[in-house]
Structures are given as structure tokens and as C-alpha cells.
């Protein structure tokens, strides 16, 4: 058969794609449990870092950290609109049964437009969010929230831990992102993350204002309790972080308000 005929070219291209895709799928399935385990541990480790329970500068073994997580952290699921706290924990992306899928779909469509707008713009249908309740060193309760949103190139995923007053930041971490290494990618570095400690999310009258990452490095923060110093060359990533941190905090706000009462 003529190697340059259209039929051969199409057939060959198709065959190569099918074979390579099959190889990829097989590899992924074979390694999936291992990778999932690594990802889960990475998240747990980042919760501990955000809550200030673990300092990566003095490394601990995986077993120790898993043990620490089990002892200190409770994983809860919060229903944003009803402020109901559930104990059942389901990893995002884990498959639901058919009936469960039907139920959630029905529930989602019932949401009013206003409620949807209130929720995060990028994920308007999300009703549930993880919440990590950690026990600090002196027994006080820390609230660790998952945060995620767009930076410059990618969606960033991380955690923001709040003090027991649900106002003061304990720490922030990012465990997954695709920002430019050396610029936006610096969000995962401790030198920048430590800027967040002690910043506050509410103004003096108790309104949620979130936290703004300022443009550039070396800003004067003395009169700005709701701001953190930025990263030179990463303004768009910084703006993204400010935006989605505020959006995520807003989703937990009704629950936190109900606790303040």
C-alpha cells in the first residue's frame, strides 16, 4: 500500500493515537492508587503547615505526619447555604452512586440565581466545601479552609488557616499550581507565605474584607492589617490570590457568623 496515500496516513495516525492513548490509560490506572495516596498525604501535610503544626524546615517522616494529622485534625464537610456541618468526608472527584448523582443534580438545579451568584463565580454549583478543624498547641481551635482559583496560567490550590477568632490568619500554603517558577510560583515558598501570619480578614466593625496581596515587594504594611506584601513580577498571580481568597472566605462566612452569635 502506498505510504503517502490519504487512507494510509489517516489510518496510521489513528492507530498511533489509539495505541499511545491505551498505553497512557493503562499506566495511569496502574499507578492511580499510588498517586492518589501521595496527593492525599500532600494535602494533609499542607493542612498541618498552614495551621502551623508542622515546619517543613525541620522535616518529619510521612508516618509521623500522618499520625499528627490523625491526632490533631478533624475533616468536616460544610454545606455553604445551610451552614450545616457534616462528618461524612468525600474526596473531590470520588465517584458517586447513580442515585446520589441524581439527588445532587436535582438539588443543584433548585438553587436560586441569587444563591448561585453568592457562591463562587468559577464554580457556581458548589455547595459543599471541606473544612479542617485543627487543634492548636494550646488546645485552641484552628479553622483551615481549602482555597483555589485562577492565577496567571493555572488554577492554584491551597489552604488558609484561621485562628479561633476566625479573623486572624495562621498561615497559608499552596500545594498545586502551574504558575511560573521563580515568579508566580513563589507563592509556594515559605518566605512569602510567612507574610500572611497575623493578617486579619475582617474590619473593626466585623465585615469581611478578605486579604489583599499588594503589588510588588517591600510595601509598608503598618496601616494595612488586611494586606500582605506581594511578589515582584507576579502581580497577576497575586491579584488572583487576593480575589479567590476573598471569594472562598465569603463562602464560609455564613457559617462563621453563625458561630459568632
Amino acid at each position, binding site marked *: 500500500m502506498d*505510504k*503517502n496515500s490519504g487512507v494510509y496516513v489517516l489510518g*496510521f*495516525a489513528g492507530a498511533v493515537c489509539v495505541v499511545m492513548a491505551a*498505553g497512557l490509560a493503562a499506566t495511569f490506572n496502574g499507578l492511580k492508587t*499510588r*498517586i492518589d495516596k501521595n496527593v492525599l498525604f500532600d494535602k494533609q501535610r499542607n493542612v498541618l503547615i498552614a495551621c502551623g503544626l508542622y515546619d517543613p524546615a525541620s522535616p518529619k517522616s510521612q508516618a509521623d505526619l500522618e499520625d499528627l494529622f490523625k491526632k490533631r485534625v478533624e475533616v468536616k464537610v460544610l454545606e455553604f447555604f445551610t451552614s450545616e456541618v457534616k462528618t461524612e468526608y468525600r474526596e473531590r472527584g470520588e465517584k458517586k452512586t447513580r442515585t446520589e448523582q441524581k439527588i445532587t443534580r436535582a438539588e443543584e438545579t433548585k438553587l436560586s440565581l441569587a444563591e448561585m451568584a453568592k457562591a463562587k463565580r468559577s464554580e457556581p454549583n458548589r455547595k459543599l466545601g471541606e473544612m479542617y478543624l485543627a487543634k492548636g498547641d494550646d488546645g485552641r481551635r484552628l479553622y483551615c479552609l481549602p482555597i483555589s482559583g485562577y492565577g496567571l496560567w493555572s488554577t492554584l490550590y491551597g489552604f488558609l488557616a484561621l485562628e479561633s477568632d476566625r479573623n486572624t490568619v495562621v498561615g497559608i500554603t499552596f500545594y498545586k499550581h*502551574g504558575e511560573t*517558577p521563580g515568579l508566580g510560583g513563589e507563592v509556594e515558598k515559605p518566605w512569602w507565605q510567612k507574610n500572611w501570619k497575623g493578617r486579619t480578614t475582617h474590619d473593626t466593625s466585623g465585615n469581611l474584607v478578605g486579604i489583599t496581596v499588594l503589588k510588588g515587594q517591600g510595601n509598608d504594611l503598618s496601616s494595612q492589617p488586611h494586606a500582605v506584601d506581594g511578589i515582584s513580577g507576579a502581580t497577576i498571580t497575586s491579584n488572583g490570590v487576593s480575589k479567590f481568597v476573598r471569594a472562598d472566605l465569603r463562602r464560609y462566612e455564613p457559617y462563621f457568623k453563625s458561630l459568632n452569635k
Partner: protein
Amino acid sequence: MTATLDAPPVAEKPPLFGKKEKRAVLDPLWDNNPIALQVLGICSALAVTIKVQQTLIMCAAVIAVVSMTNTIISLLRKMIPNNIRIIVQLVVISSVVTIVSLFLQAYVFDASKQLSVFVGLIVTNCIVMGRAEAFAMANGPFRSFLDGFGNAVGYAWILLVVSVLREVLGAGTILGARVIPQSWYLEHGGWYVNNGLMVLAPGAFLLLGIIIWVQRSISGYSEAH
């Protein structure tokens, strides 16, 4: 290896590891080094050489990728239609890189996180496609495997030299172990300060330039001819 060279030539059937095979694997190490002479694959040579540990993993990944893609493409070379050969090469290369990246995520998760985008960017490393197009499309699978392996090792050793220098000069450690004593440092009452330039990309540029210069003056290569 000298043993294979000295072995009497087998009548008709070429030896499994003959002169050509030897050249395929040894040439790129020195005489035709992909970084020092062809100046390919520079992007990752700058990006992943701050710490020796991540360089080692990057090198292992590149060695695996180039050896495999060269072998696969060589096996397919007689079937690949000429007018879509580059696309077919790309499909093979990107699949293999994704597979390698999955293995890194499964077995060395932290390192794969540190390497971040650079594992995926092996796809665009000119060495990979260069060897596929220039060698694997015209040679048998075993020879292509050796050529891929040789080129990747030629790339790897230069990266390792750069990363050792950068980690020692920039952080005073090798593989995280301290080589420059703590007491030498200014903040501990000594006189020494880490060279901040070395942890930045320009430091890698300087080192790489010096290495290419040294390598070329020893190997006697000149752009003129």
C-alpha cells in the same frame, strides 16, 4: 568495550555491539555533545540545576524518555508516512513524557512537584525530537536506543556538573549535605557568603558558558568549519 572492538568480525552478520553502536553511544558524550557542541536542551539546563537532587531526577527522566522514544520511533520508522512524521514523533514523545511524569508522581512525588512544569517540558527539549528525526528515523531500534541513551547521558553529565557547582556555590551544600562549614559564614562569625547569583538563571548561563568553552577547547571543536 575494548573487548568488543578487538573481537574478530563475525562473517556476514554484523556484531551486536560493533563500531557503529559504540559511536552511537560514545560520540554524544564528548565529541558531539548535545549541550556543549550542538547547544540543545539549554532551557532545562538552566531551570533544573539549582539543586543536585532535582537535577538527578530530571536527568533520569530525560534518559528514560530519549531512549524510549528513539526505540519506539525506530521500530515505526518504516511505517511512518513521510508527510506526518513530525506529528507522529510528537505523539510518541508526549505520550512517553506523560508516562514518565506519572511514574515520578507515583514514586518520587516531592521531587516531581519541585520539578513542576519542567518534566512536561521534556516534550519540547530539542534533544528528544532532534534524535528522533536525525537518528531514529534512519537507524535500527538497538542502535537508536544506544544513540538516545548516549545523547541523554551526554546531556545529563553537563547538567550534573552545572548543578553541583550551583549548589555548592549558591547554597554551600551537595544533595542537601553541608560541604562549606557553617562556621565560615558571615552570620556565624566567619567571612563567607553564598553566591546569590548561582541560584538565579544568569548564574547557570555563566557556568554553562564556561563549561562549553572548556569542553570545546579540549575537544578542539570550532564553529568555523
